């Protein structure tokens, strides 16, 4: 391992960006559970409304499962189960809203697909969003890996504003996909 990196700089960046916590690595179901527990506890301690805690958790779950299933960077766990590697975390905006953020590499084809879907979702009003979500829920099919094509809709519904995302070209022709999802504290 290269030890020339600057831990203080990482700390300072997280501190200055109001990041409460962040994790990078294989996103397993166990990691998701402990992240979920940590954030639930922390939000509970801050006297956050149960509704807000659930919204944040819901967005966290969908973002984590996106990485687990679609990250192009993968690792094999025991029992030969493959999981995606990525970065996920929670921060706060200056207005006191929560931000769930995620970042992972995807293939260019996957990037194109995600972009098309997010651009479409970002044009929808809240009522159109619910209608589309319902339609996909009733008429869509679920794939063998458990994807129902609903994750990004759910994230948008819980966020109530356009999803902030970007793609940055990375090594080996892969694209780094990052997403910042703001969860409002008030209705």
């Amino acid at each position: 391992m290269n030890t020339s990196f600057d831990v203080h700089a990482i700390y300072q960046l997280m501190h200055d960006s109001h990041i409460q916590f962040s994790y990078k690595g294989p996103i397993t179901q166990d990691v998701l559970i402990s992240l979920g527990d940590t954030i639930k506890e922390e939000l509970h301690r801050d006297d956050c409304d149960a509704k807000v805690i659930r919204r944040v958790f819901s967005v966290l779950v969908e973002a984590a499962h996106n990485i687990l299933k679609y990250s192009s960077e993968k690792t094999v766990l025991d029992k030969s189960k493959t999981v995606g590697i990525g970065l996920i975390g929670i921060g706060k905006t200056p207005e006191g809203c929560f931000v769930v953020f995620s970042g992972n590499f995807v293939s260019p084809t996957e990037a194109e697909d995600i972009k098309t879907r997010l651009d479409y979702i970002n044009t929808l009003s809240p009522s159109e969003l619910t209608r589309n979500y319902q339609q996909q829920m009733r008429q869509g099919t679920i794939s063998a890996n458990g994807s129902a094509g609903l994750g990004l809709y759910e994230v948008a519904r819980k966020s109530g504003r356009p999803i902030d995302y970007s793609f940055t070209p990375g090594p080996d022709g892969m694209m780094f996909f990052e997403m910042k999802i703001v969860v409002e504290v008030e209705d």
Partner: protein
Amino acid sequence: MMKKLHIEGTRYSPRIELDPETRTLLIEGDSYPENAVDVYGPLITALDEYFEQPNTPLNIKMLSFFQNTSSSKMITDMLARLQHFFDMGHPVELTWFYPSDDLEIKDTFELFLEDASFPYSITQLEE
């Protein structure tokens, strides 16, 4: 008669019990597995077997407040199956509990049951 179906709950998936003797189905616990097909697939298969005899009643109790989208999809498919069995003459009824005063969860459950014509109630769980 079919055997009782028992699926153990985990931190992220509900306990499921389909009992042909008591004619009940219980789904209890939050649901956010990576792949909900693993959790609800066996239940949907078991329901097909459960309703093989005509006029089989089923009383469903759901005590599950949180679902990820994969689970929501499987629950929607399960409810559509139950509607199908109800239409075929099986007396199906469902109670879905929500935590007291949490109207957002109540609204979510109402959306799930929008198309259902079998008897159901969305009931506040007393603390």
